[in-house]
């Protein structure tokens, strides 16, 4: 059985953390899940059996370390779950890792790296505490207490990239770089440099991801889709642009993507019965 539950963060962490999540997969049979780029980065602790991920650039699945930092994804990727997987994840706002940890995300795009690179020895300490915790509430408490210690002095690392990311998310990616420059009174050079340092992406790349993420999600959870509505909702000029961007991010045409997800949904529903 696959279960996924989201939990909110306390107000002090709201500017940085989108949510915590708890993912449990306990069926034992191998399951491959496709995931579109979400526009967020994450820290993930795996407290159960190992699991593997394959990005569009990789031929084979790679088994991941127990504690990872996942950077921005620019393409659809596949997660292979088997045995008893138990993940605790922290989903961060696009600029938050840099703001909290002074860690540039440029080298983490489309990658998952060991959390030691970000947290040093603290990664192992946190992992041990999370593994020993009795329940989800205790795990959340451990994480809340840890991240609250990182908030001090964050203002020094706030910059135009935070404001740009906020505007992009608010406009669901339907905003041009020119408009961002105008809204924020900064030059293209400064905006792109800061945004790249904080997220690993250019504002234009990020807009494309944010624009497509809700559409990919909607397609993944629908049994039938009004494509014209999707084109309109995403603010695309026409269907050709929509298909081109969809393929660029998901490596599949919208129709094929829908079909693959229908198969997965059917499989999950069958198991529930």
């Amino acid at each position, binding site marked *: 059985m696959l279960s996924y539950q989201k939990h909110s963060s306390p107000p002090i962490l709201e*500017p940085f953390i989108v949510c915590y999540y708890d993912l449990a997969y306990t069926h034992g049979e191998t399951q491959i899940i496709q995931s579109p780029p979400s526009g967020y980065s994450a820290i993930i602790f795996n407290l159960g059996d190992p699991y593997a991920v394959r990005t569009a650039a990789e031929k084979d699945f790679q088994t991941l370390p127990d504690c990872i930092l996942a950077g921005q994804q620019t393409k659809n990727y596949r997660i292979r779950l088997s045995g008893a997987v138990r993940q605790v994840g922290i989903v961060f706002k696009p600029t938050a890792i840099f703001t909290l940890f002074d860690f540039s995300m440029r080298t983490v795009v489309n990658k998952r790296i060991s959390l030691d690179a970000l947290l040093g020895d603290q990664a192992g300490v946190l992992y041990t505490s999370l593994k020993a915790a009795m329940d989800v509430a205790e795990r959340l408490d451990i994480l809340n207490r840890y991240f609250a210690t990182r908030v001090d002095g964050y*203002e020094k690392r*706030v*910059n*135009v990239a935070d404001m740009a990311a906020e505007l992009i998310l608010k406009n669901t990616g339907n905003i041009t770089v020119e408009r961002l420059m105008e809204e924020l*009174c*900064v*030059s293209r050079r*400064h905006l792109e440099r800061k945004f790249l340092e904080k997220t690993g992406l250019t504002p234009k790349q990020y807009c494309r991801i944010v624009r497509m993420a809700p559409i990919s999600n909607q397609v993944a959870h629908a049994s039938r889709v009004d494509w014209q509505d999707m084109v309109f909702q995403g603010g695309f000029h026409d269907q050709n642009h929509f298909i081109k961007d969809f393929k660029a991010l998901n490596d599949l045409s919208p129709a094929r993507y829908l079909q693959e997800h229908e198969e997965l949904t059917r499989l999950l529903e069958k198991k529930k019965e």
Partner: protein
Amino acid sequence: MNETKTQQQEATSVLQRKGTCIEFFSAYQEMDLERMLNLCTPESIVYFEPLDQTGTGRVHELGKNIWTALMECFPDLDNTVTSLEWIEAQHAVKCRVSIFGTQRKDFAGIPEHGLRFDSEHIFIFKFDDQALVTELRVLWDHDKFVQQLTPADL
């Protein structure tokens, strides 16, 4: 009743903070640096964002130096506040301001050519309970600023 009172207090405090901003730009317009600085706490920090690390420091030191230099090099320096907005999530006031002036002395490595700049700025102010500024973030298009002060044939 209590809720209404709290809402009223909040509204008053937002107005007070916006008032501080207006007074800051009024003092800036009159080139009254002392009055500008008196609206900021002694420990207040300023971030002149396009200048990166060199643009971060105390309002009473770095801010004072930069504004002094600006006033000396652009003797007709002036500003127009075009909008003031309270940002609840950040407990801050965001001001959009046009700043303009004619260069009469070399400024921050930019040689004087007698040219005029007119630049949109964003000032984001944060405050203490007395509506004094504790943090100020300033954004502008520095490339455009330099371009305006540089003759086209250079």
